[in-house]
């Protein structure tokens, strides 16, 4: 189905400093601004003709959103609108020669139409300029307030057609911010689109908030809040904002992780003296203890089959990743390279393990191929932590420091593409990438 497969396996591509400031119209209340710093060295060139609604000024520039989505992936370069000779909205209006002269390999044309009162349809076509052919014509429907959603859905479809990889632009991010106010830190748990737009505050507190984790359906978050004066795990619906406290034990109540079927939470409790991994059955509210060791056991994450947990333990003297089979509670060490490997998460392929890895005193995000045992450092910054993998496995978002400020940054799993998502003010940390939402 892929017409052209853009290589994602290009580990040491020449650093292409795009230095493109993508300044598409973010809503006034969004806090993250994205800056692409390194893209693929042979990006596919696409042109996105303005997709408008005849006679109506739309609240969002759909084509600009699609352009920034494609650019952010690092796999595409877009033709500036100012260079376009015409703005076709139908394949029939396209003069392929114009676009070939601009060096465009693909062209996207489309338009928005009103179906009924408030209901809109975005129809768009992907054209192969060199073959002078329409690759597909597609449409997505929504209501007036969903123009950004429609644009991201179009990006998903185009990205999948050209790369062969499912697009993840319609996904969301959860993250924690901390801002000084009157000499005190104010903590917020936020949810935004994957491009940082449409930020919503889920929780605001004068006490720390930690470790947001998405439910597998993407409709709930579990997280740690200190609002009671102690760490406690809560779950909160994204649709109703209703929340419920799940744990209230002495000691640590932390590191929640939803099972793939959404019925259980793996978490950490130290009520018995030191941190141990437990599984909470959300229906019966019963806790099952999984580990039994005097060392630190923390940061559990599920394997995609729901049968095992990966977690961090210093039972061998330094923090390393271990695998626990839930049925037998058998534990097996996974990482051996270096003296600090923590915070495991598995890419959707089930074989690429993403960890925080310390090398020469500096904390990087690294991947370990569980089949070949090969380790790859993805980042050069220091103090990198909290990696979270996109549901399509293309990118990892993580937290790092820029000067003394906490920012989010993204890197592709082959380390070839990089971008920053700094907050406009304050610290931003602990990103959690949602699952696919449809």
């Amino acid at each position: 189905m892929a017409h052209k497969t853009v290589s994602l396996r290009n580990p040491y591509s020449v650093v292409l400093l795009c230095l493109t400031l993508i300044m598409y119209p973010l809503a006034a209340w969004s806090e993250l601004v994205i800056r692409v710093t390194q893209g693929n060295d042979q990006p596919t060139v696409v042109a996105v003709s303005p997709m408008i609604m005849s006679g109506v000024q739309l609240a969002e520039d759909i084509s600009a959103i699609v352009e920034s989505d494609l650019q952010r992936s690092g796999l595409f370069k877009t033709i500036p609108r100012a260079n376009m000779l015409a703005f076709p909205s139908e394949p029939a209006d396209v003069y392929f020669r114009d676009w070939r002269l601009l060096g465009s390999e693909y062209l996207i044309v489309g338009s928005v139409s009103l179906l009924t009162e408030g209901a809109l349809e975005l129809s768009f076509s992907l054209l192969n300029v060199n073959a002078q052919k329409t690759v597909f014509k597609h449409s997505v429907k929504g209501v007036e307030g969903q123009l950004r959603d429609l644009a991201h859905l179009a990006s998903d479809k185009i990205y999948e057609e050209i790369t062969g990889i499912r697009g993840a632009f319609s996904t969301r991010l959860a993250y924690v911010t901390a801002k000084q106010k009157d000499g005190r830190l104010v903590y917020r748990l936020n949810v935004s689109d994957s491009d940082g737009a449409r930020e919503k505050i889920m929780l605001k507190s004068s006490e720390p908030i930690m470790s947001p984790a998405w439910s597998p359906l993407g409709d709930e978050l579990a997280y740690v809040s200190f609002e009671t004066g102690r760490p406690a795990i809560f779950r909160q619906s994204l649709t109703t904002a209703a929340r419920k406290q799940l744990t209230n034990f002495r000691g640590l109540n932390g590191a929640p992780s939803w099972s793939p079927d959404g019925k259980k939470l793996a978490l950490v409790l130290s009520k018995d003296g030191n941190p141990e991994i437990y599984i909470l059955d959300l229906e019966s509210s019963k806790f099952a203890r999984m580990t039994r060791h005097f060392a630190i056991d923390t940061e559990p994450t599920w394997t995609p089959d729901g049968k095992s947990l990966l977690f961090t333990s210093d039972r061998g003297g330094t923090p390393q990743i271990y695998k626990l089979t839930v049925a037998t509670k058998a534990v097996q060490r996974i990482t051996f390279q270096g003296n600090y490997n923590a915070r495991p998460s598995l890419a959707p392929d089930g074989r690429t393990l993403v960890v925080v890895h310390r090398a020469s005193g500096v904390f990087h995000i690294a991947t370990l191929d569980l089949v070949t045992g090969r380790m790859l450092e993805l980042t050069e910054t220091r103090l990198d932590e909290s990696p979270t993998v996109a549901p399509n496995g293309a990118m990892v978002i993580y937290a790092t420091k820029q000067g003394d400020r906490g920012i989010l940054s993204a890197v592709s799993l082959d380390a070839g593409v990089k971008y920053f998502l700094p907050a406009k003010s304050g610290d931003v940390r602990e990103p959690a990438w949602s699952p696919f939402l449809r």
Partner: protein
Amino acid sequence: MNISANKFGLPILCLSALLAGCSTAPVDETTSTIEDTTVQTASLEMEMEMEAEKAAAMAEAAAESVNSADTVFYFAFDKAVLSDDSRAALIENAQFLMSNPRAVRLEGHADERGTREYNMALGERRANAVKDFMILQGVSGSMIEVVSYGEERAASFGSNAGAWSMNRRVELK
């Protein structure tokens, strides 16, 4: 665009109200009430004098029992071993607590290096090291609560060795 950015406004408001409620100071019970207005002036003055003397004596006793030992204990990177200085200060603190029993809280902290949940565990390990030492000195374990903040509550902001050494700590409260 007509997206309700205020969808979560109400619950947040409720929560803040709840949190604000918690911090309400207890009613001041030392406020004096005058019940009998028929008391003679002389005897009232005498009573007031006696009260003042009593208050002064109590203040003096309170000053004597102020604990002057350090209540913040620092640690080496990735370690939960008490330094000699910390041990000396903890012995003083323990003796004071045994003669002036009260419930205390040990807040464990880590520097920003390493992952957040691992640092939560590290902060707790440090606070437990302090707790164990205090119990050895005779303080009742039931009077001590341990809470780890990991790297979430830095004492010193900044990403350098100086700030990190200030942040690897346990605070006795």
